[in-house]
């Protein structure tokens, strides 16, 4: 059993409490990760959840329509979970053409037993965040998007920037079709060459929406560490994203 958090110093406790009540920015979250053992943080966070659950008031059931919708979505996702990725075993292709032709992408995050902490970039303007990252990152990867023939990508351009050292990145889009979040959302997939079965199991880079008009900058929200990204791909998926992408609608790619 790991050393529990009774031995944490005040700074660590403060950061952990903040993380699990109002959230931390990237820098403080990284500091907390350095200061505290992950298993201890999990245990600490579980205490928050158990206290919260035990002190809920005014409990009520969700509307029936929502439950039915959630069941439908859940069945879709679960039905897709175990399906196609394993069929890719043994394949040796390494170029982006082969990856894009792969028979189903299973998000790496769904396939491993790991407790990921929320790393969603929050609290700052993505445009400013991108500029700052471009200015300071020594390992910056910057790749232009290439549009596919999907109608949503017609005339679309932009780029993706990514720093493996900071585990942070941004996507910039111009003229990518706006989506209706109740109908569909864009989802980013990141192919990390250091991961096992990486061609079939990209890292889920998060779902996002695009509003009409102008340039859109979106912070990347990887669910796992991305150490050596070689390909970024954006698909259109059901609201909330998917674990397995059938890639019926691949709209943009950015490959090294």
């Amino acid at each position, binding site marked *: 059993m790991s050393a529990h958090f009774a031995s944490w110093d005040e700074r660590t406790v403060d950061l952990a409490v903040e993380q699990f009540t109002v959230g931390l920015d990237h820098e403080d979250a990284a500091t907390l990760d350095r200061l505290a053992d992950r298993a201890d943080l999990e245990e600490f966070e*579980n205490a928050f959840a158990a206290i919260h*659950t035990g002190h809920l008031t*005014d*409990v*009520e059931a969700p509307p029936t329509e929502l439950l039915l919708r959630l*069941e439908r979505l859940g069945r879709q996702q*679960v039905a897709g979970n175990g*399906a196609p990725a394993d069929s890719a075993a043994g394949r040796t292709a390494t170029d982006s053409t082969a990856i894009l032709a792969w028979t189903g992408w299973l998000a790496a995050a769904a396939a491993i037993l790991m407790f990921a902490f929320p790393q969603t970039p929050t609290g700052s303007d993505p445009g400013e965040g991108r500029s700052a990252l471009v200015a300071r990152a020594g390992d910056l990867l910057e790749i232009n998007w290439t549009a596919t023939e999907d109608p949503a990508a017609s005339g679309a351009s932009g780029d993706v920037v990514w720093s493996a050292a900071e585990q942070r990145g941004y996507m910039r889009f111009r003229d990518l079709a706006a989506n209706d979040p109740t109908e569909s959302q864009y989802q980013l997939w990141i192919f990390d060459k250091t991961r096992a079965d990486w061609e079939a199991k990209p890292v889920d880079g998060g779902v996002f929406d695009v509003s009409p008009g102008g340039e859109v900058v979106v912070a990347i929200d990887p669910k796992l560490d991305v150490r050596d990204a070689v390909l970024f791909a954006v698909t259109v998926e059901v609201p909330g994203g998917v674990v397995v992408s059938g890639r019926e609608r691949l709209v943009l790619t950015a490959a090294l």
Partner: protein
Amino acid sequence: MIGVQVQAATSAGLSWPVAFTEFEPDSVHRSAAPRVVGRAKSLRMTAPSPKRDSLLLRIASGDADAVGACLDRYGSLVWSVVKRAWNDAATVEDVVQEIFIDVWNSAARFDPEKASEATFIATIARRRVIDRRRRAGRAPVEEPVEEVEMSFEDRGLSGVDMGDEARLAREALEALKPDQRRVILMSVVDGLTHSEIATATGLPLGTVKSHIRRGLEQTAQELRAARERTR
């Protein structure tokens, strides 16, 4: 170059699987005993056997039938956590949907040795709420939680599967002094910062911090001991 490559891939007639072709949009599965939706179900005082009955592990293994059961068991929990943060029904629905999608996605990460399903799902719900509130520009909840001395049943929790861990957490806090308990709930349930709690209660910042730390340690200790008893 990649554009050409993509075109080549598609025009070559490569078959991209449709992940959800087996799904019939209008067919929502019903077991022999129809699932009740829209109202609370019967009281469940204890958590199910973690491994044998784990809905999340069933979901992780691709058992789509577990989805409805999971919604039955934890729908009210998630709804209530989210509803505490927002009054607007559309936002609440959106966030609840995001949370359950996250739950389906994360089911494979569930480890009954570390937490109960209710705690695991509440953790996901809390993360999503915290994240959304940060994005939207955080504002404290309008009606901070009150000191509640009623039983689970009295407080309307009889329709929710809270599991043993919630009960243990509640008991752990009940062993503390009322002002300590209040501070912890302001932090954990209302999401107030140390400074906000100090301002609201008039307690010194250091006292607020120590109350919170003690309450969380006490709770974690109880949860850990309970898990070790069941191993």
